[in-house]
């Protein structure tokens, strides 16, 4: 075991998979010469050459769609978007091409494509600060992962690159510096579609996604001191979604809070709520609580941003309300 950062986890996954498989390529804006605006990919062009690691013009439609075209013809492209928000500039290529080309053509082709999407509010406002996973949960054909720690960042990215389907890989900008332990196994993979129990407990189920996970763990510590041992579940993958993990936990606790950095309406919590209505209503002894962004764009000034982004206090209050 070693301790690495989340950013290192991402980089190690890229380097290991590119060494392992010559069909893996990496490209995007500023990824080669500059090493990416978040400096995740520095040194990769030097190791793998300009044929496999290169910079693209500001042309998200062309280069994301080219990822689909390259995947259809035998490569495993990893495409970096500078910000997850830029997924909206390339909606056709993500939703209709990556998500539906295989289906529309009767399964004739596989699309082993990974699109890396730096997500999350970090003082960068409405068009650079979103966690837009829920939008893409609504479209068939895309796998979606949102790691919350260095080990998952690495293991999920390696699994995503090896997967034969398009995967949107959401890496939260505020987690890049987060540290954690990781195995030295070069084949350390985290399976897509498998949730993790980040902390076991029986008083309440707290589902937290991406950067909400460290906040949820802090809340769990605080509640433990008050005598409430809650369970924290990190879904890790949003598609496929590990429904049984949540249902099983709710059977034990009877209470659930979902903390996410998406908009409240039709967010991840809304889907979890609907799923529990169908599959576990009889086990819930209190109503579900969602801690999410009220339905407003993400403002830039810190004081405004922090007002809308779920924080420890808001998550704590939601849990306290159900535990009362």
């Amino acid at each position, binding site marked *: 075991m070693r301790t690495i950062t989340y950013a290192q986890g991402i980089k190690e996954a890229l380097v290991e998979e590119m060494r392992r498989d010559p069909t893996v390529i990496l490209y995007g804006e500023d990824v080669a010469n500059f090493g990416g605006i978040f400096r995740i990919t520095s040194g990769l062009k030097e190791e793998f050459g300009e044929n496999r690691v290169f910079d693209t013009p500001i042309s998200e439609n062309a280069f994301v769609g080219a990822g689909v075209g390259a995947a259809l*013809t035998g490569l495993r492209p990893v495409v970096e978007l500078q910000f997850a928000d830029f997924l909206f500039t390339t909606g056709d290529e993500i939703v209709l091409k990556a998500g539906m080309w295989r289906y529309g*053509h009767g399964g004739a082709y596989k699309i082993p494509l990974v699109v890396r999407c730096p997500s999350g509010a970090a003082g960068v406002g409405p068009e650079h600060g979103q966690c837009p996973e829920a939008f893409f949960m609504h479209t068939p054909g895309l*796998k979606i992962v949102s790691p919350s720690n260095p080990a998952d960042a690495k293991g999920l990215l390696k699994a995503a690159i090896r997967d034969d389907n398009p995967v949107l890989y959401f890496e939260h900008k505020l987690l890049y510096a987060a540290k954690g332990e990781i195995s030295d196994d070069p084949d350390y993979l985290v399976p897509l579609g498998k949730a993790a129990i980040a902390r076991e407990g029986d008083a309440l189920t707290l589902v937290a996604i991406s950067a909400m996970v460290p906040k949820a763990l802090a809340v769990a510590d605080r509640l433990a001191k008050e005598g409430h041992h809650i369970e924290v579940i990190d879904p890790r993958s949003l598609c496929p979604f590990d429904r049984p993990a949540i249902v099983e936990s709710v059977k034990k606790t009877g209470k659930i809070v979902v903390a996410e950095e998406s908009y409240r309406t039709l967010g991840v919590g809304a889907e979890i709520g609907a799923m529990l209505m169908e599959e576990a209503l009889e086990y819930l002894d209190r109503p579900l609580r969602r801690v999410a962004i009220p339905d407003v764009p993400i403002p830039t000034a810190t004081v405004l941003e922090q007002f809308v982004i779920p924080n420890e206090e808001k998550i704590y209050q939601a849990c306290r309300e159900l535990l009362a």
Partner: protein
Amino acid sequence: MDRSLKLQIYRNMILSRRLEERIAELIKAGQVGGFMHPGVGQEALQCAAIAALRRDDYLLYAHRGVAYWVARGIPLEKVLCDLAGREGGTNRGKGGVMRVVYPELGVLGESGTLGGCFPIATGAGLSIKVKGGDQAVLCFFGDGTSNRGTFHESMNLCAVRKLPVVFLCENNGWAVSMPTERSTAVRDIADRAKGYAVPGKVVDGNDPEQVYDAVVEALKRARSGEGPSLIEAKTYRLWGHWIGDPDSYRSREEVEKHWRHDPIPAFEEKLAKEGVLTDSMRSEIDAEARAKIDRAVEFMQKQPSPRPDSALEDVFA
């Protein structure tokens, strides 16, 4: 172009024309559903361009007609089964006739959104370049589609990375009801090539030899690592936008005028003058096409519909 290539292109043009006529009958008789955008009038350029491809090249065809599939050698019965939404086609009822796919012949499929083809073609070109082969990609599109932003982004990306992609514009004068001169600021779409520092060439799309030569030259450039080219083939859509289109937006005089430039009789006349095609060969080729189509229709009519719950398959690999 040698004699056998000319005859091959001619045969494919006839087979395509007869097949579309038959499809129109089937649709009008209510025997098959589905949408078909006929390519009548554009077969010369489609068949000639595809004749220039190697078997291992990639093809992104456009939505206009059957000639792309005929010329690439996809069995007719598979095309008809896709049209009819039956088993026995290429896409299991998932994509209809607009998503005929054939990996063995590099036929990557079709983008339902116009202009979605360009980034996919760019990616296929990228694959070839990364793997170091000398294949090429041929990407068809219409005059209207040249106004999508993806055209600009993809042309530029292919040009800066010198990707082996040939962009072939079929300028048939109309985007459904919108004439090219009202949708498009330049007279020749090929002029846009200058904006990407790549060759842009206008050819008579109703002359198979001009088209073939231009595509051969562009493919040669692509294979030798010099990058993409843009070819604009001027042609005309003789039928409506789809089978059933009331076609009320253009004058009958205009359409009549273009029927006089129908590429099929023009090519027949040329081949006859050159002594390549005799009257008896002509009847033979026509009869052969009709017989092939009869067999394919018969095959299609015997195919079952897909299992309803197969709608849930093919989302993920």
